């Protein structure tokens, strides 16, 4: 029985590894936290990858500048919540369910099925909105002072 669970968890870990890396670093990442959670069940070595890598000084500065602690939570409470390993009862079936859902997400089924077309992706009021956003995130084209001022004045 436990062998089956482990096998299912290994499958799930394989899917989890397909999740894209975050373009912008955050305090926690879906991929990292879930890999940690399921690698433990799959009996794989945890911590060798991504999630346990020490953040660089730049990352920490970046995160501190962007966020204060989430609302109403003391910093140490937050840390406690992050450190707790929840006790969970898995069966092979539940893990397969998780993997199935994850694969649906990975296959972009809903983006393609509910495709919104250029009407929303290149919005009439501000056609380059998403393009600029992605360029900035991916570092392709940085905003300069003047383009930023233009946005402040014109709103787009």
């Amino acid at each position, binding site marked *: 029985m436990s062998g089956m669970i482990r096998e299912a968890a290994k499958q799930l870990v394989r899917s989890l590894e397909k999740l894209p890396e975050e373009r912008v670093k955050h305090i926690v990442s879906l991929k990292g936290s879930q890999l940690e959670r399921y690698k433990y069940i799959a009996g794989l070595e945890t911590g060798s990858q991504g999630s346990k890598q020490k953040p660089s000084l730049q990352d920490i500065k970046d995160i501190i500048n962007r966020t204060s602690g989430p609302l109403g939570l003391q910093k140490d409470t937050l840390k406690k919540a992050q450190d707790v390993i929840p006790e969970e009862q898995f069966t092979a079936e539940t893990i397969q369910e998780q993997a199935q859902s994850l694969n649906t997400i990975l296959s972009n089924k809903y983006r393609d099925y509910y495709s919104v077309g250029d*009407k*929303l992706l290149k919005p009439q009021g501000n056609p380059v909105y998403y393009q600029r956003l992605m360029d900035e995130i991916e570092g392709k084209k940085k905003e300069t002072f003047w383009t930023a001022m233009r946005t402040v004045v014109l709103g787009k």
Partner: protein
Amino acid sequence: MLNYTLATGSRSTLRALRNPKNGLLLKNASFSTKSVKSNEPDKFESPEELASKSHLKTQPIDFPNKAPVNPKKKRPLLSDSKYESKLYQLPKWKEALGEIVIRSFNLDMDKVRSGPVAGSYYYALCKEQGLQFENEPLSTTAKFFYHDLKLPRTFSQWFQITILHEWILFVRMRAMPFKYGKNYQQKLVDRTFTDIELRLFDEMNVNSSRIADQYLKDFNSQLRGAVFAYDEGFVTDDSTLAAAIWRNLFGGRKNVDMVHLEAMVRYVRSQLYVLSKMSDREFAMGGFKFVSPDETVYRLSSQQESDMKKAVIEKYEAMDNNPDLLPSDRSKLSYEN
């Protein structure tokens, strides 16, 4: 006048949309499966059914954080103003005076309408989705969020649910002509923060304005972060959107249920799909309503889509050509896109 446009305008557009003949929102009840089966071989369950299908019974760590809102004094849904009460009827002479003012100053009604539609009607929609009070039954959508997805019943969770829905509306507002879309967004955000401030004082029993300010600043940065993350997920792929939902709506919980995430991705994408099929005019008149999580949205066939468009165009053409149309009902927004 204004409330008149809102009430009847929105109801009739909704009827046009929910009409099975034009069928944009097809309930998963009997008729939808009948009419849709032919062009949609794969049958979907609704987000709610999907979420409750999961067999993972573990309790999220934050789930027992129960602090349902227990107000000493309950605020009305929108405001204390009599003009926003459903029962209030504007006296005829005031209505007439308003029409005269609009006509003589040639006011831009599309701009004026952003207040009652985005600031009032759409904000109420977003607010209602996750609204919860102690000892009060939850709405269907709230049940989906608090029971099926096992989110904690707290004030900040309500805020997260609200801004998710606001973001969905923002996406559509961006596609309106810039001047109007921006105005609609501004009105929605303004209203959100005025309302939260009042709720903090009246319902959450915050007595110090310094603490309330701190909360508001925090909420503001949460809103900006969430809009950014959802935007990124919206243009890229489902996994980025799922990660954004996980970080914001699910508070980055460690033992998240992937089935719940999938249900949320479907929920968000289906709402956006419905919005993408709506013309500027209908949306600006307050013709949108969120699809309840226990309903399934199926894609329209091209036949259904053109039928729906035709019905909408006919309706607004008749309205625009009507010489007796009240000045307050006028609009220059397109009904063809």
